[in-house]
């Protein structure tokens, strides 16, 4: 029986990669453990080892091929005595992600339509008023936009430096700091030991002395170790010192669920940090916002929590080609204007919201979609203005429901726009459970497009 060699998934969020090099050719003998190919993911170049012994009968994907989907058949191995010529030479398409038989959803769970995969759909982003007309846009990943923002600010101000685990020689655990070490040297791109509490405090001390540190947490889950320094030292010193001393510092890194990494590595801290006076909290969705807002965060004289998302790192968006593109912190963006209902989201929540809004448009519901971009200070005025027009509001986020951003918006709307509401504010959130590992349960724990559509229909009485 010939053995199929499939394109492997080499990270929790990898969906495709480049087959950069074959190290074996057809007819070569391979033993278990031999390196047969090099595959480049968006994070790293990885070696692929053979699992089985045999002879390479066919290489189905030529080296240099980009965007090879995980589970695509890339080569065929035959055992001794088997006939290599009988093997088909057509590269097989990646089978649909193996759907485990779905368990019957518990009664309490909303009758959600099949979740739509996370791949981004083409969206037209309403023009940001801060971008001059006639500007050229370049398609850029969120990852590159973040790196560009840091590099530009480090060129501009010698007091800016970046520190964290694997930010320098490894080029970033998620490749966000790629190339910074080479340009700015180890004096300004600093690998730390695995010591979050220590380096968050150390960087805050450096900020109190007037430097402008960017602290990368490999993920915000690990910032729990450092939360005392972030809140008690960084956020409160300006107030406690009567305005004499503050901490101009950015704490950034991926936040929220990645994919199949379980409860300790999948948590959205948006509402936690947005609770704290003295902090600013930024959660970008698009690459343009990631760039413009990170530049603003680095220049900001206050501690800024900058919540990124691992899944969004590889998503591409148009970024304006401007010498110095800085966006204001604390300003929401109307992602799509509409008149029937206001949908409010931020960060990765926007992936569900944008798809839901497109689906609703096909059904004749014209939703206005607001991307909050900043959670503190929260641009509630933009939400209120929209609700005055639509009379209805649905919020979308991955975080847990209790004391969520949606809860806060609902409360603000009750206080400030009660007379304009034609329906209760509904929130779509992650489920009130620690993140499960099983693929089907993880899918159920996260919000989905169907839930957003259902919530919008409920508030529009459709």
């Amino acid at each position, binding site marked *: 029986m010939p053995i199929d060699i499939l394109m492997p998934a080499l990270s929790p969020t990898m969906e495709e990669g480049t087959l950069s090099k074959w190290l074996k050719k057809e007819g070569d003998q391979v033993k278990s453990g031999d390196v047969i190919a090099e595959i480049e993911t968006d994070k790293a170049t990885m070696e692929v080892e053979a699992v089985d012994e045999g002879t390479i009968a066919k290489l189905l994907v030529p080296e240099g091929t980009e965007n090879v989907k995980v589970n695509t058949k890339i080569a065929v191995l035959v055992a001794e005595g088997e006939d290599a010529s009988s093997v088909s030479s057509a590269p097989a398409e990646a089978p649909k992600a193996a759907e485990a038989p779905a368990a019957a959803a518990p009664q309490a769970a909303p009758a959600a339509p099949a979740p739509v995969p996370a791949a981004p759909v083409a969206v037209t982003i309403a023009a940001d008023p801060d971008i001059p007309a006639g500007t050229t846009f370049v398609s850029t990943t969120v990852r590159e936009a973040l790196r560009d923002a840091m590099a530009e600010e480090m060129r501009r101000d010698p007091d800016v*430096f970046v520190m964290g685990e694997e930010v320098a020689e490894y080029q970033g655990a998620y490749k966000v700091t790629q190339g910074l070490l080479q340009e700015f040297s180890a*004096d300004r791109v600093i690998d*730390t*030991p695995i*010591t979050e*509490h*220590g*380096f*968050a*405090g*150390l*960087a*805050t*001390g*450096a*900020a*109190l*002395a*007037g*430097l402008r540190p960017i602290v990368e947490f490999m993920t915000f889950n690990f910032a729990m170790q450092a939360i*005392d*320094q972030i809140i*008690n*030292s960084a956020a409160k*010193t*300006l*107030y*406690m*010192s*009567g*305005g*004499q*001393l*503050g901490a101009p510092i950015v704490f950034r890194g991926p936040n929220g669920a990645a994919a199949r990494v379980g409860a300790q590595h999948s948590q959205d801290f948006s509402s936690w940090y947005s609770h704290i*006076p*003295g902090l*600013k909290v930024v959660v970008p969705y698009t690459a343009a916002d990631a760039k413009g807002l990170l530049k603003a965060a680095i220049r900001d*004289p*206050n501690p800024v929590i900058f919540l990124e998302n691992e899944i969004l790192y590889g998503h591409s968006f148009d970024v304006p080609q401007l010498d110095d593109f800085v966006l204001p912190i604390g300003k929401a963006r109307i992602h799509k204007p509409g008149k029937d209902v206001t949908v409010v989201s931020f960060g990765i929540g926007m992936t569900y919201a944008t798809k839901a809004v497109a689906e609703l448009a096909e059904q004749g519901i014209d939703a206005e979609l607001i991307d909050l971009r900043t959670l503190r*200070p929260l641009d509630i005025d933009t939400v209120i203005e929209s609700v005055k027009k639509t009379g209805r509001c649905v919020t979308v986020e991955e975080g847990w429901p209790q004391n969520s951003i949606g809860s806060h918006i609902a409360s603000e709307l009750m206080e400030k726009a009660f007379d304009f509401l034609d329906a209760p504010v509904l929130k779509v959130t992650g489920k009130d459970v620690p993140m499960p590992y099983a693929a089907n349960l993880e899918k159920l724990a996260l919000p989905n497009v169907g839930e957003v559509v259902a919530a919008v229909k409920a508030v529009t009485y459709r």
Partner: protein
Amino acid sequence: MAVAKAKVGSKSAPAAGRKTAAVKSATSTPAENFSKEQELFAYREMLLIRRFEEKAGQMYGMGLIGGFCHLYIGQEAVVVGMQMAIRTGEDQTITSYRDHGHMLVAGMDPNGVMAELTGRRSGYSHGKGGSMHMFSIEKQFFGGNGIVGAQVPLGTGLAFANRYRKTDNVCLTYFGDGAANQGQVYESFNMAQLWKLPVVYVIENNRYAMGTSVSRSSAQADFSRRGVSFGIPGEKVDGMDVRAVKAAGDKAVAWCRAGKGPYILEIETYRYRGHSMSDPAKYRSKDEVQKMRNEHDPIEQVRSRLLEKSWASEDDLKKIDAEVREIVNNAAEFAQNDPEPDVSELWTDIVK
């Protein structure tokens, strides 16, 4: 006070012997005699702290100072000796919540400190910080921190900034025997030695972490050796003798200025009062306190030397006492008459 010498050359672990030899806790740096000016300076500074703290205690009892108030009485020689070893205004200092002495010796205005204690508008933090949260960029004093041990990474970061800016400034990072058991202290030790940061870790060992004695809290009670596994040199210092503190401070600061990395000073001291104003200090005997006061008082030691060497007469010292009392009384007067912060201050200084 007879200083217990650091136990060096571990008996139980021969394998560790040679490797740690270079970083074993050294015997105390011998106290060097002070000049007349130094003795008089130290006397006056220590007296100012003591009188200020006594007044603060009194005002707390009168309800003029609220919340937590941690007095420094008994420990005065530590900050005075260390301050004499640094360049005030260039080298940084940072400490815990027992911070009044550190601020006064750094040259911060007693009126501003006392007004902060009473929560008034002319306090260093406009009344918004209180006893534990005052700062002075001018004097390079970075607080005043309420979370036990949190100042240790912060101070290490101040030292990081010195290295980043290529100055030869040094940061004195003070903490107590209690904080020495916090994990972040060792995270800081590791990075400070790894990156050779100019930070002197000044462990003020006053024997009690609130009510828990060192012997009940610490597996390694020789704090000067707490940096051994990182290769950070350390030594024990008689913290009741200001001359010993200054001499050890000079050595540690010179080490840091020369780019050799961090240094640990375990300064053995004693607080005469409870942990805070609300602590009756029942965990130790009255005799223990009285014995320290009678036999090792840091101010009395300087006072006897001044008289013995005829560098000052009883009258001269009385005059200094009177001057100090006047400063403290004025501060108390000022802090009681200064208005509370304007209510608009509630909403200022949250973000810039």
